[in-house]
């Protein structure tokens, strides 16, 4: 059995930042593994650990060389090997929309032929929340979105993903999805482990295979996006909050008169 986990290095913006053109100035960015993907990795590793037969866990990412350190953390937590898709054409692409990413991931799925694909519900930075489901559609897999519980035995023994999904208003839905399938994993489904020192050591010699568009039988047209960013800005914040200065007594008095002005309370 083979599990493919899609992982992404996401940008985290510092508290104070500036926008340069159509993006946050990279000086104010730090990079980390997408939070949702941590849970997807943990689910995949738990599948492998629970299995009697060999289960290979492969992670795939679309990202520059910088992302290898982040990807290696997934390897340290039990992923067996990784595929990293990147080249100059992808680098030059102004904006990778969901369709572009799906074209690349679809080609990786064709090469790897996984039984189950796990992705995060969404990426923390771009937040489309569509890659996993769009990929399922493209490769003709069943899918389950926003999965917050997964029955491991069912996946391993019956070829069925029995998943809980969280619906509006705290309702839980139980669905059975035949494999092969794509599941988008919600945070909280498990408790992602820390990488142990042993795992970190072993990860240093695990493979992160670089793939270019041509390695995947694609060309630059695969990353021609139909979606363009037109602007990025910080909205003006309109705040009606008033801070009353002074000690508790003065603050209370100011609050009382403000409330009275608004017509709150009896005269």
């Amino acid at each position, binding site marked *: 059995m083979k599990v493919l986990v899609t992982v992404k290095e996401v940008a985290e913006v510092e508290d104070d930042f500036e926008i340069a053109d159509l993006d946050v100035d990279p000086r104010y960015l730090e990079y980390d593994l997408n939070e949702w993907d941590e849970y997807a990795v943990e689910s995949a590793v738990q599948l492998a650990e629970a299995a009697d037969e060999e289960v290979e866990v492969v992670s795939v990412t679309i990202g520059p060389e910088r992302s290898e*350190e982040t990807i290696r953390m997934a390897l340290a937590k039990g992923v067996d090997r990784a595929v990293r898709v990147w080249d100059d054409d992808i680098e030059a692409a102004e904006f990778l929309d969901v369709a572009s990413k799906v074209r690349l991931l679809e080609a990786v799925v064709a090469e790897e032929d996984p039984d189950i694909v796990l992705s995060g519900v969404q990426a923390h930075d771009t937040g489309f929340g569509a890659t996993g489901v769009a990929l399922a559609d493209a490769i003709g897999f069943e899918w389950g979105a926003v999965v917050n519980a997964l029955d491991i035995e069912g996946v391993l023994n019956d070829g069925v993903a029995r998943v809980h999904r969280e619906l509006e208003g705290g309702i839980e839905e139980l669905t059975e999805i035949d494999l092969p399938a794509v599941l988008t994993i919600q945070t909280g489904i498990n408790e992602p482990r*820390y*990488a*142990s020192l042993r795992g970190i*050591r072993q990860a240093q010699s695990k493979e992160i295979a670089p793939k270019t568009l041509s390695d995947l039988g694609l060309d630059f047209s695969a990353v021609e996006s139909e979606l363009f960013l037109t602007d990025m800005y910080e909205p003006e914040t309109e705040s009606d909050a008033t801070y009353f200065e002074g000690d508790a007594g003065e603050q209370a008095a100011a609050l009382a008169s403000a409330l009275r002005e608004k017509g709150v309370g009896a005269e």
Partner: protein
Amino acid sequence: MLDYLGLEADLTQEERMIRDEARRFVEEEVKPDIGEHFENGTFPMDLVPKMGELGFYAPTIDGYGLPGVGDRAYGILMQELEAGDSGLRSMASVQGALVMYPIYAFGSEEQKERWLPDLGTGDAVGCFGLTEPEHGSNPSGMQTRAERDDDGFVLNGSKTWITNSPIADVAVVWGRDTSADDSPVRGFLVETDRDGVTTNKIDDKLSMRASVTGEIGLDDVWVPEENVLPGVEGMKGPLSCLTQARFGISWGVVGAARDAFEAALDYAKDRDQFGGPIARFQIQQDKLAEMATQITNGQLMAYRLAELKSRDELRHQHVSMAKRHNVRMAREVSRTAREILGGNGITTDYSPMRHLANMETVYTYEGTHDIHTLVIGADLTGIPAFE
């Protein structure tokens, strides 16, 4: 996070990953309730197996299920743990450098098989008994005696100030073998459930409160011959362990100082007085600049120590210098950080005063500041002042 001269940029990817995971572990598992543990005088016992699972005990050993990382990676780990609390680093130091290391370096194959895997996972806890009520800085004066009988030894004596003795399964006890010529110091592995062993807890500490400390009483305790560490005789046994542990301390306290500094820096930028943040005052900036410089100095020493250790050129006097310098640095930095926090600085809500209180122990254990001064003095002059 303060790394003013960018030393961490030179770390390998493996070392950076260890730093990041250890930092995350401390952030998520330690910091939320360490202040409460300090106040209650308890060690977070649930972390004992967790730290074991992550490979935090004696990680430089290769084999016996241990990861075998390099010296600098080990240093980085100690730095991150002590940024949480010195009690946490003490746990790792004692278990790793003072218990697992001597078993690994001086133990028989059976002793290694018996103890290293269990100590590595935290399924067993160890302690190191050297200090005695009447012999602290001068441990070679120890009174603990081992008398040979038919197939083992009978131990008598008392040890005090022993980190983790009340929670330990096994104690590495150093005592004099009075049946041999010149009564050499030998190391004994004493299971704490043996008849005649008591491990009373020491309460009322005002420092290192999030760490368990106790005594070891040995009243006609019999241990079999195979519990003696076969590979070492004399003071170099305990002293070589201490060199390992002090290496970790030299790194660890940089973490404690950094944590106190970060708390003070955040606070100074946040706290408004006289119409703006206190960080705009030159006096506060002077304190911050001085702290950052001193921490960076300590960091440089720690990095150099790791370099020398991995080249096998590290002398114990080098470690004395770094331990002495870095602990004093961390003590001063945490006190200055406390000042910047004003009244809030004296509570357990903030880390500086907890670090400051802990530094009083770290200043004293593993060779007091004064004793390391004399070690360096003896090395420089060729005249030992303490013999």
